[in-house]
């Protein structure tokens, strides 16, 4: 792939970081997979061979064949088309929820670490409480309270992501605050907002981005899990977790119903973890060469 040899981004401190990250190929492979998936999801209208909701009573529970690569479900709907359309919801929920969690969590974490004192104590205590709930239980509770809808699903998953980013941003800010350049900024009379968001934030983005790529995988998995237990976007809208759930009822008659959407989830998990690991290796100076 020619984009692998793209010029190194200037923001990475070491010029070899990009090369180091792509040498193993993991980061590049992960990026390619995710980009392809996003393209397929975005162009679902043209890529999907059938209407995902169109029922064909003559073709109920047919196995994979040339007409229906992933087979058909109990209503005669094309599983491949449903998986492609489902990618839209699953990826959208994952991206938006992670983005919201990253932005809010990072801002709060930087403020907490920068100011310290009582603000920091309060925020850290709240973070610890939120982190003590398993992430899935937390999402489950929130959706159960808010009611299943696309917006509430995004909100719930974003909230589960926030404490992790508060913690990462706070820790990195504490380390960065010890550097002399922060004192230099204060001696130059810069305001706290300028120091926090123009000087500290750019220096902790490495850690935040690595976390974000790994959390994206978690967010997509959470969405699928919630959809599987019936707390996702209400049917008939196709989502990966929902398709697995629907297929579950007829699993003994048609293994393809649940296996293909599961494979799609697996593929995204692998791709995002490759990206996360690659980015971490690229930005961690202690990582072995």
């Amino acid at each position, binding site marked *: 792939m020619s984009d692998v040899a793209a010029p190194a981004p*200037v*923001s990475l*401190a070491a010029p070899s970081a990009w090369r180091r990250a792509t040498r193993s190929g993991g980061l590049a492979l992960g990026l390619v997979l995710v980009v392809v998936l996003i393209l397929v999801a975005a162009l679902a209208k043209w890529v999907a061979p059938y209407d995902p909701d169109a029922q064909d009573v003559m073709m109920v529970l047919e196995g994979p064949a040339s007409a229906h690569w992933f087979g058909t479900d109990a209503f005669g709907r094309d599983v491949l088309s449903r998986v492609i359309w489902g990618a839209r919801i699953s990826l959208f929920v994952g991206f938006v929820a992670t983005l919201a969690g990253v932005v809010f969590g990072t801002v709060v974490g930087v403020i907490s670490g920068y100011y310290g004192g009582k603000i920091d104590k309060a925020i850290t205590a709240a973070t610890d409480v939120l982190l003590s709930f398993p992430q899935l239980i937390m999402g489950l509770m929130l959706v159960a309270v808010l009611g299943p809808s696309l917006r509430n699903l995004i909100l719930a998953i974003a909230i589960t992501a926030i404490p992790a980013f508060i913690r990462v941003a706070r820790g990195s800010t504490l380390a960065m605050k010890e*550097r*002399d*350049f922060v*004192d*230099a*900024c*204060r*001696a*130059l*009379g*810069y305001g706290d907002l*300028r120091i926090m968001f123009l*000087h500290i934030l*750019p*220096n902790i983005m490495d850690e935040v981005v690595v976390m974000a790529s790994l959390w994206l995988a978690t967010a997509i998995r959470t969405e699928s899990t919630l959809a599987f237990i019936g707390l996702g976007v209400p049917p008939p809208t196709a989502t990966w977790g929902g398709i697995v759930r629907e297929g579950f009822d007829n699993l003994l008659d048609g293994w393809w119903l649940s296996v293909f959407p599961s494979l799609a989830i697996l593929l995204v998990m692998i791709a995002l973890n490759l990206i996360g690991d690659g980015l971490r290796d690229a930005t961690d100076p202690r990582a072995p060469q």
Partner: protein
Amino acid sequence: MTGEPLLQVRDLSKTFLSRKGFPVPKTVAVRAVDKVSFEVGKGEALGVVGESGCGKSTVARLALRLIEADSGDVRFDGVDVLGASKGDLRALRRRMQIVFQDPASALDPRQRIGEALGEALRVHGLARGRDVRTVVERLLDEVGMPKVAADRFPHEFSGGQRQRLGIARALALGPDLVFADEPVSALDVSVQAQILVLMERLKAERNLAFVFISHDLGVVRHFCKRVVVLYLGRVVESGPVPAIFDEPLHPYAQLLKASSPSPDPDHAVAMAFQEGEPPSPVNPPSGCHFHPRCPFAIDQCRTVSPALRTAAPGREVACHLYPE
């Protein structure tokens, strides 16, 4: 010194508290700076010397209000620094700057040099638009760096170059006083000399005053006119450089002199002193902090802390051996 001093520090004190221990944490108090007083005149270089951990750097950070002091009084050109409002403090920041010890951590790694210097100018409204670049290039030229340095990131420079850039940043706002916190101790000896020459030139050209913090007596002797000797957060002696370096009065200043390497191999170093580390500032000795290491200690030293008194014109010492 003629007329009003530029910077006047009176009885500056700071105690750091930390909670340590398990399962019942105890509050530990470290008296980092204990009633420190000194003055700096316009265009004058004052040396602050002492062992590591004696509170040298803390004094600079307190006077700049990077850390808030517990008590004391700091006046810059007649303005009360410790009681200054946010707006007044901003105006004061333009006139007092700091150069750090470690040039590697003193510059924002994600900011190009031109942006870093330009930001200071813009925030204080000292330059706008195209003028920013012109002023930045002039600053770089003043510290002996090429114009192209403005487009580079800090990691592209050597330690000595970074220290020049740190000095350029301190000069950006046109200060009257620069706190130099061990500005050359992280550098190679050959580079140290270059930086000192640069600072000397700036002192002369800009009539810049310096508070030069160092543990290297040779450098202080070269650069400063007057010197303050700190021991565990207290001033033990102050006065003109030649007097203190040639005939130190306080036993601690004598120890510093004796342990400082001499270029003359025939010059015997008299080590009448007990060896040893400086005691912990968490639990400093009673009376005079120096008495456990002092060969001349008398009973009084163990109980009564000596006050700073004038030993000769312009010269002060805190020691019971020199009664008024």
